[in-house]
């Protein structure tokens, strides 16, 4: 039976050897995201990602709000990484408004940003654990996340969405009890990370499941434009904090991990090492922080110059950049968010094709893909 092409319908030949399985959006392994895989035996021969289930038009909505009012809305795109998604936005807005924020505010932003990085990585680690069937590795990071959520709560006044790094600086100064609590938390968590290594990262079954799985060679990683942990695991020592230092990262002493195995294991290890480095940065920030104001006076209806700004920072998942075009009014003319999740998504079909079905969740989550962030 042939169907005329004008009807908009098409037929597809059915291959009995292949099975097309839709993973998501109700699948526990995919969240608000769907991809269809075609399997032949235990091998994936085709993978087609299909994002967009949580597209809310954040870019369009910013055009209706002034620079301050977009903050709570933009935060909700990336709930584990709220400070890092609004920080480049605030930086771009400040560039367009022509103001410089006080140094103490920059330090506070760094503290919040690194705290968010740990929160995001712990969340990542939890899901990676459950994707590999390791339920303890789900519960432990989720429990220890509470300590860092509490740190964020002391500083930002909320548990998830702080609206902290607004254009002009930060909302409030550091409370007194923060430092003692933070040092306690770091001391405790550094010990916990050793436990994590024992139970998860050095577990032979974990090594078996991740080593040599989903290899993305250095050259391909660069040409595909992946960012963050995916790039660093592919033997590229690239981090916006080093490449184009913003805030005071130039003065901080920390190292950027990279591995030459380019596989899922390397991506997991990068996350682990980055959590240690984040705590190191936060300790330094707390010691070096100067006193002074934390917020530049700024009217909510602050006008901007005509022009454009492109800012980028190293968010928890990789380089996050904002391109804001302004026509001089109180509202941005065009905001384009280039999120790390979307940039890493391009590696997903490349890594899935040719791998085992059982490796699919491990590879998928090792890219640290956050559907809400990618869909904006």
């Amino acid at each position, binding site marked *: 039976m042939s169907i005329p092409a004008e009807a908009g319908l098409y037929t597809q030949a059915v291959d009995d050897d292949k099975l097309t399985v839709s993973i998501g959006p109700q699948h*526990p*392994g995919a969240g608000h995201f769907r991809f269809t895989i075609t399997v032949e035996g235990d091998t994936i021969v085709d993978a087609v990602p299909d994002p967009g289930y949580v597209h809310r038009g954040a870019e369009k909505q910013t055009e209706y709000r002034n620079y301050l009012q977009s903050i709570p809305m933009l935060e909700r795109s990336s709930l584990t990484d709220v400070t890092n998604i609004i920080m480049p936005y605030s930086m771009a807005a400040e560039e367009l408004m022509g103001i410089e924020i006080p140094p103490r505010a920059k330090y506070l932003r760094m503290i919040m940003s690194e705290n968010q990085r740990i929160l995001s990585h712990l969340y990542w680690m939890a899901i990676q654990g459950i994707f590999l*069937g390791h339920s303890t590795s789900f*519960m432990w990071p989720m429990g220890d996340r509470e300590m860092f959520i509490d740190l964020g709560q002391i500083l930002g006044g909320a548990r998830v969405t702080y609206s902290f790094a607004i254009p002009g600086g930060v909302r409030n100064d550091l409370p007194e009890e923060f430092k003692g609590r933070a040092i306690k938390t770091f001391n405790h968590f550094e010990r916990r990370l050793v436990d994590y290594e024992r139970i998860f990262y050095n577990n032979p079954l974990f090594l078996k*499941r991740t080593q040599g799985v989903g290899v993305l060679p250095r050259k391909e990683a660069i040409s595909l434009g992946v960012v963050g942990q995916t790039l660093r695991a592919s033997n590229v020592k690239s981090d916006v904090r080093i490449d184009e230092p913003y805030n005071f990262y130039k003065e901080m002493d920390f190292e950027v991990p990279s591995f030459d195995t380019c596989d899922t294991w390397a991506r997991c290890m990068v996350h682990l090492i980055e959590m240690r480095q984040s705590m190191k940065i936060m300790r330094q920030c707390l010691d070096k922080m100067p006193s002074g104001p934390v917020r530049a006076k700024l009217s909510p209806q602050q006008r901007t110059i005509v022009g454009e700004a492109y800012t980028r920072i190293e968010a928890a998942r990789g380089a996050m950049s904002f391109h804001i075009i302004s026509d001089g009014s109180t509202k941005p003319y065009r905001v384009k968010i280039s999120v790390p999740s979307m940039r890493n998504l391009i590696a997903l079909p490349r890594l899935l094709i040719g791998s*085992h*079905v059982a490796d699919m*969740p491990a590879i998928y989550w090792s890219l640290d893909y956050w559907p809400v962030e990618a869909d904006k």
Partner: protein
Amino acid sequence: MAAITNFEDFAKRILKIVFWLLIILPMVILPLFYIFYVLPIEISCNFNVLNCSQKIDWSLALYMFDPTKMNPLDPTSYISQLGLGATSPLFKVSTFPGLTFAALLSSMVIWYERKLLAKMQYRVGPLYAGRIEGILQSFADLFKLLFKEIVIPAKADALFFISVPFALMAASGALLAVIPISPTNYIALSPYSLLIAIAILGFFPIITVLAGWASSNKFSFIGGIRALYQMISYEIPLIISVLSVVILAGGSLDLMGIVNAQSKIWFIIPALLAAIVFYLTAMAEVERIPFDIPEADSELVAGWLTEYTSMVFGVINLAIYIKLYALSSLFTLLFLGGWQGPAPIPALAWFLIKTLIVMTIFIIPRGFNPRVRLDQLIGLGWLWLIGLSFANVFIAVILRASGLL
């Protein structure tokens, strides 16, 4: 099922639940009766096993009644022994060493597992049901599941789909029938009880494939096929590992005999390799993490269990836990000397303590291990476990031939 708005609906729903309960009970018990009463009479043949110069008399292969008092060709001699007392076969099958006991134990083991894992995982686990640390959580779950709607997918093969929980329950229950739990507490005695237990284990892959296929769901199907792969490739090392125990026990296929043969030394010492192989393969048989590949929840939703809801799902889970209990007791009987132990503690208590320890060892890997991959699992099975179990067979033969044991 629609929401309850009036008494009529309520009565209908209760009737439906009672109906399903009535179906479940005979579907579990009838196969048991069929296997253990009818089959032994019909099949009657002789052949050699392991060249042990034993003649198998299948009419005596498995008996729950006193063989001296009954005539195999006269059904009335069975009926005359039926009763409801604590020594009657019906009570044995349904209550004490049988299904109810195993189900209660399993439900407590479910609670114990959840609590243990919670403690390992930095949580508190079940807390509210039953006042004391959520000890009645399993029963709360049971009642919740009972009041859920049974959903049969539109394109599923309804007959096979719904027969899976009964088949699983029957197979798990049949496994219990041949396992004695103390010298006096047993359902059926047989000179070949180990052989029968292994034969029953062979049913499970078929049932899981049936479940996967009948669900008419891609995830279920992949899960069913994975279960088939896993169980078939792990059955061979399982059988070979048991073989060394049989050799050590002097060719006895009777679990009672095997336990009695361990009065001097527990077989876990001469047959350590076999014990490890049995432990790993049994873990794969009951699909526990790290071998829960057929129901890998991150990639296959719930594997072959995906489409099952309500008490149907509950029955499947209960059957799996009964299977876990049966395999743990097999481990105790084969390697840990069964009910043997110092006097003040009774034999039954020894057996239960040992079984609970074995179950804990079965449960604990879930707390610190991720899932392995199918190809790794099958590679492990065919490359290592078969080799190890054969090595232990040779050790057993040498020990036996040199007269050390």
